[in-house]
C-alpha cells in the first residue's frame, strides 16, 4: 500500500521544491535583479522543500532496495553480494530444482539441481526471458506461466513435461510462487520436482503400508521412550484397539499385565540390540496368547537409538494344534496299548471266569459256591474297567473322519446287538429312516457310543418284565441334524441321576467305572453333536443322539 500509492506522491515533493527554486531563479534573472536572486536563493521555504524531498528520496530508495533483495537487510554492496552468494550456495545443495525469476520475468538464478535436471547450465539461462525459456523447456505451454503478470495466477501448481537439453522428456511437478506473497513484480521462485522421484516415494509408501497391514505378524514401531508410532492391522486384531487409539500410547499400555521392563521391546531398547525371537505367554484383554516376539532397535544416521521395531507372531492356534497333536499321538499309543492289553487280559480272565463257573456248578458246599461267585463277579468288574479304559483310549484321533451313514453303521453293529438281545431275552425293534444323509464322523467312535448306550439299556432291563430295545434313526428334509434314538423299557432314572449322567466316575452300577457315558458325551460333542436324555422311573429311558448332517441335500 505504502509502496504503491504513497511513494510516487512522496517522490514528487523534492521535484516540487526544485521546480520552485528554478522558477524563482528564472523569474529573477529575467528581471536582472541580482539582489532578488540572492534573496530568492535563501528563501527558507525553497530549502525546506528541497531538504524534505531529498530525505524522502533516500528513504524510498532504501525501501526499494530492501524489497529487491528478498528482504535482506540494507547492507552495502559487497556484503550484500556475499549474503546473496551464501543463499545461492544453500539453494545449490538442495535436491529440489529451483529457479528464481525477477519482476521482469528474466531468469536471475537457477540452482545445481535445476541444471542437473534440465541439462542447461546457469550461463545458458540466466538473463533469458522466462517465457522464451519455457518455449524450449516445456512440451506444451499450458502452465499458465506465459501470463504471469496477473498476481492471481500464483501460487501455481502443475504437472508438466519438461524437455531437457538432451531432448529427453521429464515428467515433473512445477510449483511457482511469488517471492513476496501478493507482489509478482518482486520476483518469482519456481520449483521443479521429478515426478518419478515423487511417485517412487508414494509407491514405496503404498507398498510399505500394504506389507505392513497385510502381513500375518503384528508390527509395532515405538520411539526411544516406548511410545507407539506405528501399529499394523494384526496388532489391532490382537489388542482389539483401533490404530488411531494405539498411536501415542506406550507399548506397555497394550500389555498391562506384564512387567514394563520385561517387555521384549523395552529390553531391546535398554540393551541396544535385537532380542528374540522368544515365545512368550502374554495376557491381552484377559485372553492368553502365545506370541513369538522379536524386537530390534532403530538407529538414526548417527547411530543413536531412535526407537524399536517389534514383530509379533500369534502362535496361539499353532500351539494349541501342537498340543492337541501331541495328545492325540499319546492317545493313539495308549489306544494301541489298551487294545493289546485288553486282549491279553481278557484271555486269562476268560479262563478264570470259565473255570470258576464250572467249579461253582460242581461244588455242593454253599460257602465255596459263594466264594466262586465272588471270583466271577470280580472278573466281571475287572472286565468293566478294561472296557471303559478301551473306550477312553480307543477314540483314534489320528484317524481321519469319514463319511458315515448311520443306518449302515447300525446294521454293522446288529450281529453283536442281536446276540446280546437274544441272550438277555430282549426284543429288538429297529425303526430306521428309509433315507439318511451322511455325517462326518469316526465310525468306530460312534459305534462305541451306540454300543455303550445299548449296553446300558440291556442292563437297565435285566429285571424288567417287559424288555424292548428300540433303535430309531430319523432325519427330516431340510434339517441339518441326523437323530439316533436308543430307547429301553428299563428301570428308568430319577431326576437326580439324570442331572449327574455325564459326570465322570458317577455310576449306579456295582461294577462300573462311571466313565462310559462321560466318554459317550465327549465323543458326540467332539463330532459337533449332542445327546439328550429323557427318562421315567420304572418305565424306561430314551437317549437321543443328534449329529450334524454333512450335506443335508445329499441322501444315501
Amino acid at each position: 500500500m505504502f509502496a504503491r500509492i504513497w511513494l510516487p506522491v512522496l517522490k514528487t515533493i523534492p521535484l516540487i521544491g526544485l521546480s520552485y527554486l528554478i522558477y524563482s531563479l528564472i523569474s529573477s534573472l529575467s528581471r536582472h535583479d541580482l539582489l532578488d536572486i540572492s534573496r530568492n536563493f535563501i528563501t527558507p521555504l525553497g530549502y525546506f522543500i528541497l531538504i524534505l524531498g531529498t530525505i524522502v528520496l533516500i528513504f524510498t530508495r532504501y525501501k526499494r532496495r530492501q524489497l529487491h533483495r528478498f528482504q535482506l537487510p540494507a547492507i552495502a554492496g559487497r556484503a550484500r553480494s556475499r549474503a546473496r552468494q551464501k543463499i545461492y550456495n544453500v539453494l545449490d545443495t538442495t535436491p529440489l530444482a529451483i529457479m528464481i525469476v525477477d519482476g521482469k520475468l528474466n531468469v536471475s538464478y537457477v540452482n545445481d539441481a535445476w541444471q542437473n535436471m534440465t541439462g542447461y547450465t546457469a550461463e545458458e539461462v540466466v538473463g533469458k526471458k522466462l517465457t522464451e525459456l519455457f518455449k524450449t523447456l516445456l512440451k506444451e505451454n499450458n502452465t499458465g506461466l506465459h501470463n504471469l503478470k496477473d498476481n492471481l495466477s500464483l501460487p501455481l501448481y502443475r504437472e508438466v513435461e519438461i524437455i531437457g537439453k538432451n531432448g529427453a522428456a521429464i515428467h515433473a511437478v512445477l510449483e511457482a510462487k511469488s517471492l513476496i506473497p501478493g507482489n509478482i513484480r518482486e520476483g518469482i521462485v519456481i520449483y521443479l520436482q521429478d515426478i518419478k522421484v515423487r511417485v517412487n516415494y508414494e509407491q514405496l509408501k503404498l507398498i510399505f503400508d500394504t506389507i505392513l497391514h497385510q502381513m500375518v505378524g503384528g508390527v509395532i514401531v515405538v520411539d526411544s521412550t516406548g511410545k507407539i508410532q506405528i501399529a499394523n492391522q494384526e496388532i489391532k486384531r490382537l489388542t482389539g484397539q483401533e490404530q488411531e487409539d494405539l498411536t501415542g500410547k506406550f507399548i506397555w499400555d497394550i500389555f498391562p499385565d506384564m512387567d514394563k521392563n520385561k517387555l521384549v521391546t523395552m529390553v531391546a531398547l535398554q540393551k541396544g540390540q535385537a532380542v528374540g525371537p522368544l515365545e512368550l505367554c502374554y495376557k491381552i484383554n484377559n485372553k492368553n496368547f502365545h506370541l513369538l516376539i522379536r524386537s530390534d532397535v532403530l538407529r538414526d544416521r548417527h547411530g543413536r537409538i531412535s526407537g524399536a521395531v517389534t514383530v509379533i507372531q500369534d502362535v496361539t492356534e499353532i500351539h494349541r494344534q501342537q498340543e492337541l497333536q501331541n495328545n492325540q499321538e499319546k492317545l493313539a499309543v495308549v489306544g494301541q496299548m489298551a487294545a493289546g492289553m485288553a486282549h491279553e487280559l481278557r484271555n486269562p480272565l476268560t479262563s478264570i471266569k470259565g473255570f470258576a463257573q464250572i467249579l461253582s456248578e460242581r461244588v455242593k458246599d454253599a460257602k465255596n459256591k459263594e466264594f466262586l461267585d465272588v471270583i466271577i463277579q470280580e472278573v466281571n468288574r475287572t472286565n468293566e474297567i478294561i472296557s471303559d479304559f478301551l473306550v477312553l483310549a480307543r477314540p483314534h484321533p489320528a484317524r481321519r473322519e469319514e463319511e458315515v451313514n448311520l443306518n449302515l453303521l447300525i446294521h454293522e453293529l446288529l450281529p453283536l446287538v442281536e446276540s446280546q438281545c437274544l441272550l438277555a431275552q430282549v426284543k429288538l425293534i429297529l425303526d430306521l429312516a428309509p433315507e439318511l444323509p451322511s455325517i462326518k464322523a469316526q465310525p468306530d467312535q460312534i459305534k462305541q457310543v451306540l454300543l455303550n448306550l445299548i449296553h446300558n439299556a440291556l442292563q437297565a432291563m435285566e429285571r424288567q418284565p417287559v424288555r424292548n430295545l428300540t433303535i430309531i434313526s430319523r432325519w427330516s428334509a431340510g434339517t441339518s441334524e441326523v437323530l439316533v434314538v436308543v430307547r429301553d423299557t428299563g428301570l428308568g432314572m430319577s431326576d437326580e441321576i439324570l442331572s449327574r449322567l455325564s459326570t465322570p466316575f458317577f455310576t449306579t452300577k456295582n461294577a462300573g467305572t462311571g466313565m462310559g457315558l462321560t466318554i459317550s458325551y465327549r465323543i458326540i460333542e467332539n463330532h459337533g453333536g449332542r445327546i439328550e436324555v429323557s427318562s421315567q422311573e420304572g418305565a424306561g429311558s430314551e437317549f437321543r443322539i443328534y449329529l450334524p448332517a454333512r450335506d443335508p441335500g445329499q441322501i444315501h
Partner: protein
Amino acid sequence: MADCRYYLLVVDDQAGVRRMLQEALNDEGYEVVSVASGPEALQKVKQGGIDLVLLDMKMPGMSGLDVLREIRRLNPDLPVILMTAYGEYELLGEARTLGVKHYVSKPFDLQEVRYFVRALLADKRPVRSYLEVIG
C-alpha cells in the same frame, strides 16, 4: 455203531481257554476237539466230523477271519461261533457276510456259550452219526 455225540472244535491259541471250554462243554455232553491255530483247525475241518466251531478272532499267524473264510470254502454250512476279546467291530460286519451271526465277547459267561451251541445245533443231527449211516 453210529456216534451220536456232537463234536465241537475249539480254536484258540490260549491253552487255558481251550481247557476250560473243553471241560465246560464236556459237562454238557459234547465231545470237544481243541486246536491252537488256524492251520490245525482247517485240517480238522477237512477231515470232517465237526458239528460246530468255536473260533477265536485274534490268533497269531492266521487270523480268525482268515480261518473262517477257509472254513466257508470247505463247508459253507458249518455253524461257527466267534470269540472276540476287544470288539473287532469292523471284522464282525465281514463275518456276518460269511454267515456267522453268533459272537461271544471274552470273558464270556459259560451259559452264553452253551446257549448258542444249543441253539445252533438244535435242529441238526450229529455229523458223525450221519457219516456212519452212509458208511
